[in-house]
């Protein structure tokens, strides 16, 4: 049996309240870590997720202008860009890290994004195997 893909989702508490039941249609192992605000997600949090065995990391933030803390998701975006640089340095494809802007409390968008991201990771894995 193939080892299941693990996706680590780091997101803001307000972005959505999706539960296991919502995400059951998404293949792979999903791990959701909630933060008080996406602006609170540090680079180390992202890297730690990779170290803990995630194939990919998804950072979820509120759409621009809807953040409770004004610019939380913008901050998260900056950190994601920064983290991507580090990932490249240590030899992980930067596509394995992505940021998503999700409308408030819309689990549907959240799940759809997770699905797309899962497929992307699958492709990356296949490419790796092909090599």
């Amino acid at each position, binding site marked *: 049996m193939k080892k299941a893909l693990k996706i680590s989702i780091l997101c803001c508490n307000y972005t*959505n*309240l*999706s*539960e296991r*039941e*919502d995400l*059951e*249609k998404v293949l792979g192992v999903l791990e959701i870590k909630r933060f008080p605000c996406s602006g609170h997600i540090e680079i180390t949090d992202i890297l730690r997720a990779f170290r803990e065995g995630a194939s990919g990391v998804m950072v979820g933030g509120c759409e621009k202008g809807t953040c409770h803390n004004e610019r939380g998701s913008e901050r998260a975006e900056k950190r994601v860009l920064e983290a991507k640089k580090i990932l490249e340095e240590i030899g992980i494809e930067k596509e394995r890290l992505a940021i998503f802007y999700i409308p*408030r*409390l*819309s*689990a*549907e968008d959240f*799940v759809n994004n997770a699905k797309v991201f899962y497929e992307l990771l699958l492709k990356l894995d296949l490419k790796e195997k092909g090599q």
Partner: protein
Amino acid sequence: MVEAGRSPNIEILTLTEVLEVEGGAGDFRVTIRKNPRYIDPDKCTACGECMKYCPRLAVDTYNANLNFTRAARIDFPQAVPTKYYINPEVCLRLNYETCQLCVNVCGPKAINFDQKPEIKTLEVGAIILATGFGSVPLKALEKFCYGKYSDVVHSIEMERLTCVSGPTEGEVIRPSDFRHPKKIAYIQCVGSRDLSCNQPYCSSVCCMYAVKQASVIKEHKPEVEITLFFMDIRTQGKGFDESFKNAVERYGFRIIRARPGKVDRVNGKLALNYVDEDGSVRREYFDLIVLSVGLSAPEDAEKLSKVFGIKLNEFRFAKTNYLSPIETSRPGIYVVGAFQGPKDIPESVIQGSGAAALASELLHEGRWTSTVIKKYSPEDIELMSGEPRIGVFVCHCGVNIAGVVDVKDVRDYVKNLPGVVLSEDVLFACSQDSLEQLKEKIKKYKLNRIVIASCSPRTHESLFQDTLREVGLNLAFIEMANIRDQCAWVHSDDPIKATEKAKDLVRMAVAKARKLTPLELQGVKVTPSALVIGGGVAGLLSAFSIAEQGFEVYLVEKEKELGGNLRRLKFLITGEDPQLFLKDLINKVKNHPKIKIYTEAVIENISGYVGNYTSTIRRGEASEIINHGVVVVATGGKEYRPSKYPLDGKNVITQLELEERLDKGAKRGVPKKIAMIQCAGSRGEELKYCSKVCCVQALKNALKIKELSPETEVYVLYMDMRAYGFYEKYYLEARKKGIHFIRFPEDKRPIIEIQNKKPVIKFWDILLQEELELKVDLCVLSVGIVAEDVREIVNMLKLPTTEDGFIMEAHIKLRPVETVTDGVFVVGLANGPQPLTEVLAQARAGAGKAAIPLAKEFIEVPPIVASVDEVKCIGCSICAEICPFSAIEMVKVEKRKKAQVIKAACKGCGICASHCPVFAIDVGGFTLDAILEQVRGFRKEDQEIKEEKKVSEI
């Protein structure tokens, strides 16, 4: 509706707009435009052919846009007038000059495309606006993804879905896949109490109707799980709290106090996120979400305001004064129902009667000048005295009966019964066109006994009796077989046996019909005066209104002064001065030439019946006997003093005591910290019910405190803040002013202790989930209202009361101020706890209803009364003793005692007939002979019927 349609004095103008209103009270000239119906209502027989052939689909607005109808249509079968119409917006002929199919298929040639709008001017004395409510802004619904997800519906759509004559015939299915939902959620306060879509007021009715709808769904499908999301549960009406509790218990609804922010959908499943009362975030999945929408002002409120020259309030409803709730800003124009403010059916009906009283006050001089009196053709003796020729009409009642009982089978079966000349099935026997056809059939087939197999005689018998009288048959020659309530509804699970039972019921009715004997109608003269019991504000206003309508009034008050409880109210939440109003009203009543006031007086005895009451009024030593036609009971209520709280009048007081203190001692300074406890003794503690006024009263006093001393801290501990309707405005204001509102659960009520002469309140904080203590300088209890003890009056008038002591109305929704005793009306706090403005509306309504028999001068007594066969009577007087209405007296006839019935007092209950040892008493319409025949009619084998038929033919 049918009754209004049949009255010769009501002209119903449908499809009509009011263009202009000129003149003033008593003399209005109203210009109207009658838009074309394109179908001549005089010719249309409502056969439905036009709709059957109409090729043009149209969205069915009557069914909340849930399905399609045709351009030529009738909205529902009982519509008044029962005539079809053509919708000009979609009709092919009117828009594209094609089609015209309906013209060709219409039998009576009723369709006329040449009709043009007619402009007419009417001369009227008073105008009553009853335009109803509009829908809430779409924005309020879209917040919950209405329109985005098809399984989010609003409650009006749900109402149609649960209705048996609705688009799904009562099946609750969800729009996305037409399957039965298993989990349903109701979200309350959609488009109400919502600042973001400019609807800050509470719509008053949604809490109650949501539970009603949920109960209906549960009746259909008991396995459905229903969750209701409330902010506050506002079931403040009379008996509403109890019904709510019963429904929740019986059907197991889940009640959650939370307001979900938004509807979410994942993998086709709807989810709601909400924060629980203890602060935890939860997420749940539902198959169907229903939005309980509120009531808005009519969409064209501005236009109405312009045309009628009336003012609107800040929420676009018609502006009225708190102390004159039915009058608009323009004299002679009255407003009732939901255009005056969101309200339920009983209150709307009360306002309707109230407006009739106001119009009658205004126009009493012209009474009877332009009325039409209905004349019946003389009874056709020849037809009636012949052999019974029975016509049977089996009603489908839409699908109410036909959905279960095989109506056609019943019809065919009946044809073979002896005496039956004609047997037919009809879609709605009670619709106006069916009644017309009934008349024609009576003439054509010379029918002299009619059997209607449909619903309950309680609701419809008088309608059919009236129809019979129109063609010269005695009203007794109708018999109803109740195959709806007593058959189709109760046996909906077994259609075959239900059809058998329907046959039995109809056969028995036919058997009884053969033995029916005519009844005599009698009129009783009315004494044109009223007795009003109680000199509080309800009694005062009722008395004033009746007197203004032109009748003598005797007003009896047990205390020294008039005014009752209103004397204790010092200010109103809306800012008016109640004392000024009361003084003015008392003066008007005292100086009215038609009102006679008895203070410090009690009613010693009341006897008689509608139209002819005789009462003894005792005033000290003296007593006086008066004759009057009607009685208005306005005996009022009083503040309840709960025993569980340390009420001492110093540190722990009631709201009324606080009000007096605030009025008197504003200068003395207001305490620094005040707590108010709502529902003290009410809603399940000592009194079962909600007293409706205390929440608003608390808000009023809290705001007054803040006005007098802004630095005082005010805490309001409540269960549900019932600031319904526009009172919500004051609730908002109170919260903005920093008054603290703390909710406590029903099973953990606050406890007051006195420590160091100061009250300490121990209460359970829901959010913190722990008990807190609050030390205050003053504790105010919002206590309920109890009815005055009026056992004697109630017994004299034979009025039933609720278990809480309030006098029961004849019908909670349709006859809210009438009692079961004809000619006795109940208004004010004696009827139920209610705020002043509603008492005023009710007092007017009582006056309006009381004036009906007074104005008629003669009243027809229902003919179903007992009669005594003097030859058989042995004078044992058992009947006189047991008669609950004291309608039998013993008289001496040729030195022998005989029973005699006072026909006007007899209610036709039949107790005397059942107790008479010698069968000397018969009740009209239910003679011994007829009943026995009916009983014999039960379980006759088909064989016997055929034989009998043969015999009768020979």
